[in-house]
């Protein structure tokens, strides 16, 4: 098993009545709510936490990209990752990821990811999300119906730029480049492991399977609700005739560990409430612009989306609702181990993105939960896939001999 310590980097200073006063935390959140001086301490605190997670034995530390978002302060995850690359030495640096349809030209992603891979000595995991409609369409103005086409072209360009050893001309629909010549190139050959974060688009499954990319299901609704979707993915894997290595799949899970079940509730309930009530307050008009999802995906999921609007329940969910409904895995180490086993086996995943910082959780509680998970939970889950223990296809391959920051040679 692999565990990534992931931080969404939420803004923890949203007022109690944020929900009543604002229609959305994303896209049109009032920017006057942002205080750069508080932001200074916050970035540094969050980066400290990520760096510290490495020392506890997390396999990777993870960052992601969001724009104009009150629960995600990283429009450029690459900047954070560059800082982490210098201050860590072992952990994979998982950038989940760069929304490649947004970069003009996307060769920029090939270059920046290559830089991160080189600086870190081959520790980059490269995520290529299509991007949420909030980020991609509403914040960055991409035409919904053409977003996937543009993504596909960006993907082709980046992969060719990494793999090809000769300069080539790229005559794309969205990008015309006379001299594609990726400089620098990544350390990992032919390229860093590629992860595709998915919501529920079924086309993404085939794309991952064909290319042998990891499919990472990122949601805030927990592993019970994730099961149907992951089952669909594994069915598709089976149909393709490829092996069913659990490392083909990953899942993001919010986790809160206390010494006891009662302590967990007492320490973390308010921060879960902050996250589910305030941070997930996204205006529904931004969630599904026509054209973003394909008709095939709509037909697959339209009815369930209309009949059960999970989002509308978020604001009122209590600790008990969140735990009983398995939106969140929370409790004593024993409780968490048992539920994590259920998650790992149930979803058949070899990699979990552990969301151990939640909402407005202060540093010491974040570290408490993070440490308990590392010391009392992770060791018990390490060998859940003994038959796949040597499968390194979705893992980093760093240089053996690497530079030490601060020690020139």
């Amino acid at each position, binding site marked *: 098993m692999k565990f990534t310590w992931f931080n969404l980097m939420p803004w923890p200073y949203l007022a109690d009545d944020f929900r009543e006063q604002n229609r959305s935390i994303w896209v049109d959140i009032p920017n006057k709510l942002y205080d750069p001086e508080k932001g200074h301490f916050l970035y540094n605190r969050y980066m400290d936490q990520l760096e510290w997670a490495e020392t506890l034995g997390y396999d990777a530390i993870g960052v992601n990209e969001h724009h104009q978002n009150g629960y995600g302060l990283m429009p450029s995850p690459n900047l954070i990752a560059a800082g982490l690359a210098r201050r860590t030495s072992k952990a994979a640096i998982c950038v989940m990821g760069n929304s490649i349809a947004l970069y003009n030209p996307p060769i920029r992603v090939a270059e920046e990811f290559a830089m991160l891979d080189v600086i870190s000595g081959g520790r980059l995991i490269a995520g290529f999300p299509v991007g949420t409609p909030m980020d991609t*369409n*509403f914040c960055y*103005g991409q*035409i*919904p*119906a*053409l977003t996937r086409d543009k993504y596909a072209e960006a993907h082709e360009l980046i992969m060719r730029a990494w793999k090809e050893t000769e300069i080539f001309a790229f005559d794309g*629909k969205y990008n015309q480049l006379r001299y594609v010549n990726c400089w620098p190139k990544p350390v990992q050959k032919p390229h860093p492991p590629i992860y595709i974060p998915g919501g529920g688009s079924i086309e993404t499954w085939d794309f991952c399977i064909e290319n042998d990319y990891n499919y990472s299901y990122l949601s805030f609704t927990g592993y019970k609700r994730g099961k149907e979707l992951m089952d669909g993915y594994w069915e598709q894997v089976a149909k393709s005739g490829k092996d069913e290595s659990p490392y083909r799949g990953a899942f993001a899970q919010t986790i809160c560990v206390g010494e006891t079940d009662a302590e967990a509730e007492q320490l973390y309930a308010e921060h879960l409430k902050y996250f589910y009530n305030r941070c997930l307050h996204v*205006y*529904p*008009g*931004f969630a*599904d*612009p*026509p*054209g973003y*999802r394909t*008709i095939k995906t*709509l*037909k697959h999921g*339209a*009815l369930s989306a*209309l*009949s059960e609007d999970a989002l509308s329940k978020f604001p009122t969910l209590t600790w008990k609702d969140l735990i009983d409904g398995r939106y969140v895995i929370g409790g004593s180490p024993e409780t968490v181990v048992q539920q994590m086993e259920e998650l790992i086996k149930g979803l058949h995943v070899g990699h979990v993105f552990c969301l151990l910082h939640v909402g407005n959780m202060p540093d010491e509680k974040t570290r408490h939960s993070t440490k308990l998970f590392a010391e009392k939970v992770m060791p018990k889950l390490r060998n859940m896939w003994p038959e796949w223990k040597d499968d390194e296809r979705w893992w980093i391959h760093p240089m053996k001999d690497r530079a030490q920051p601060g020690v020139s040679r």
Partner: protein
Amino acid sequence: MNARTITTKRGCKVRVLEAGSGKPLVFFHGAGGLFPENPFLDALAKKYHVFAPELPGYGESSGDELLEDMLDFTLHGWDVVTALGVERPHLVGHSMGGMIAAEMAAVAPNDVAKLVLVAPAGLWIAEQPIPDLYALLPHEYPKYLFHDPAAGLALLTGGLDFSNLEVLAEFYIANSRRMAMAGKILFPIPNRRLSKRLYRVQAETLLVWGASDTLIVPAYAERWQQSIAGARLVQINEAGHMVPYEQPEVFVSAVSGFLG
């Protein structure tokens, strides 16, 4: 009206409603598509040979993937006219259809008899931003589209029962398909630099606007008049953006008065 399907040279399959005889008139619908009932087209067909093609992505028309940008949409408009076998038609376009008709008249100024633009999209006034259709929830449409939102809702849905989830899902999917297509020329801002080309329009032009249009407010009519020399404006009371549906009689009389 009769319906038939034509195939353009590009390969789009286009369903066309057709009725009447006389001078050809091609109507280009807005982003919402044709409604189940389009009484203003029936009325125009008493005097003209009316054609109302549905854009690919709408109803039974297909080939949406063949049209990606404004030039594709514009040339598609002419491809349809060619496939219909008519010459120098009147072009009447509503909202997004007005944007397309104006582009058609700009690229082929000699091929248009007269041009009628009904609350056309295609221009952008920074001080009067058009609401973001793509961030509206479907139940919010009526208040932006109609002078009388309650009556408008019935026109929009054609009496479908939205408490039936299957009906709702079907509507949702069809609406997504239509608006996905429209987004290629309307998202995120419905401005594909048409203003640079409007000087080329030679056809006599009529602008028709609903006085209570809150989607593309009447201030836009003025901008259009400044952009097309000699364009006339008829403003219709008790009508919003969907003026041909809300005031079909006044609308038809204004249009036929202009076309002759």
